[in-house]
């Protein structure tokens, strides 16, 4: 399916809400859960979820949601998660990904990490917004495409000063995969610039498979 057709599949408002709900979970979601979250009948949710799979925006699998197995456990339920395939449309046609890839390749070959980070830090500063409380901070990062969420497992953070903000999405994913140290270093500098002057927050690297390599955590004011 062409990118433009896949994106057009989101025109239906229910379908779009279902897509956004599944994407925001960061895990597999069953039909009942999605239907409840969006406030529609299960059969309608199932219909739209399957259309999203056909459009290549979601992937489906099956799983026993009860955790039981063997006789009496029931049929495995159909579950959905966001597809890792990127979709984009630019009109008129633009190809910034190839441009980014070529620039990154040249920067990597020339060892321009410092210059790239300086530019990213300046850009981060220019993009600063209010981060007075947790919601403002999350909102600022959300607006940059990071899909932030508070890590409940991490509880009170490294030094007991509060929870850690993790990010499900890397906005620079395809270049970051090709040149991880260069692009992840650029991303960290961008976030450092974004949080500059924001008392109480700092960005640091804490990479995990499948997420952005950076987390934002509470900091004492005297720390960098």
């Amino acid at each position, binding site marked *: 399916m062409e990118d433009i057709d896949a994106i057009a599949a989101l025109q239906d408002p229910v379908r779009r809400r279902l897509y956004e709900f599944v994407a925001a979970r960061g895990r597999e979601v069953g039909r009942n859960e999605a239907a409840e979250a969006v406030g529609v009948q299960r059969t309608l949710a199932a219909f739209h979820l399957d259309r999203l799979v056909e459009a290549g925006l979601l992937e489906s699998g099956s799983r026993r949601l009860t955790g039981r197995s063997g006789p009496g456990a029931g049929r495995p339920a159909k579950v959905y998660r966001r597809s890792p395939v990127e979709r984009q449309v630019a009109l008129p046609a633009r190809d910034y990904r190839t441009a980014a890839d070529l620039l990154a390749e040249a920067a990597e070959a020339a*060892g321009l*990490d*410092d210059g790239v980070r300086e530019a990213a830090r300046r850009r981060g500063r220019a993009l600063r917004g209010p981060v007075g409380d947790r919601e403002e901070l999350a909102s600022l990062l959300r607006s940059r495409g990071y899909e932030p969420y508070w890590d409940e497992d991490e509880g009170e953070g490294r030094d007991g000063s509060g929870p850690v903000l993790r990010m499900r999405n890397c906005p620079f994913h395809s270049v970051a995969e*090709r040149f*991880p*140290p260069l692009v*992840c*270093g650029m991303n*960290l500098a961008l976030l450092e610039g974004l949080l500059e002057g924001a008392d109480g927050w700092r960005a640091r*690297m*804490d*990479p*995990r*498979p*499948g997420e952005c*390599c950076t987390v934002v955590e509470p900091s004492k004011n005297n720390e960098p």
Partner: protein
Amino acid sequence: MPDNSRFHLAQLNIAALRFPLDDPRVADFVAALEPINALADAAPGFVWRLVGEGSDDATGLRPFGPDVIVNLTVWEGAEALWDYVYRSGHLEVMRRRREWFQRHAEAHLAMWWVPAGHVPSLAEAAERLELLCAEGPSPRAFTFTSSYTAEEARAADPALADRSGAGPAGAGRAGAGQASSAAV
């Protein structure tokens, strides 16, 4: 999916230090060696890493030149290696690599498939890196961006399939607990 359990992925990585290891300008790198190596040892899919005699890492071994440190490891597959190198605390070391290491003039990393249980030698590793430099990526020596599966390597090198029967499958933990340097 081919059965990869009979094959493991060997990885050689060399890096030329900008300063000697006792220089304060590389102190942060030296301090990171132990925790980063411990991270590798505990990483999913880690099999083995080269260490110098009487050492916990490979920084004392300099077969590629007096300033060039070497990292030779074995993993269950490319994904496990990738997740360690770029999706763990090791990435922070990579991010600072320019502070500590010279820029690479030529290929500095080579990967190749070995029979599970096989412990690659430095000579073997050097050969693969030379092959990569001379002929570009092939199933016998490749990189992350030009990766080959064990199946492709076996098709290209029948000797690999023959040898895979010799070693006990899954005996790759041999040498785990010995240590080597961070892959930079």
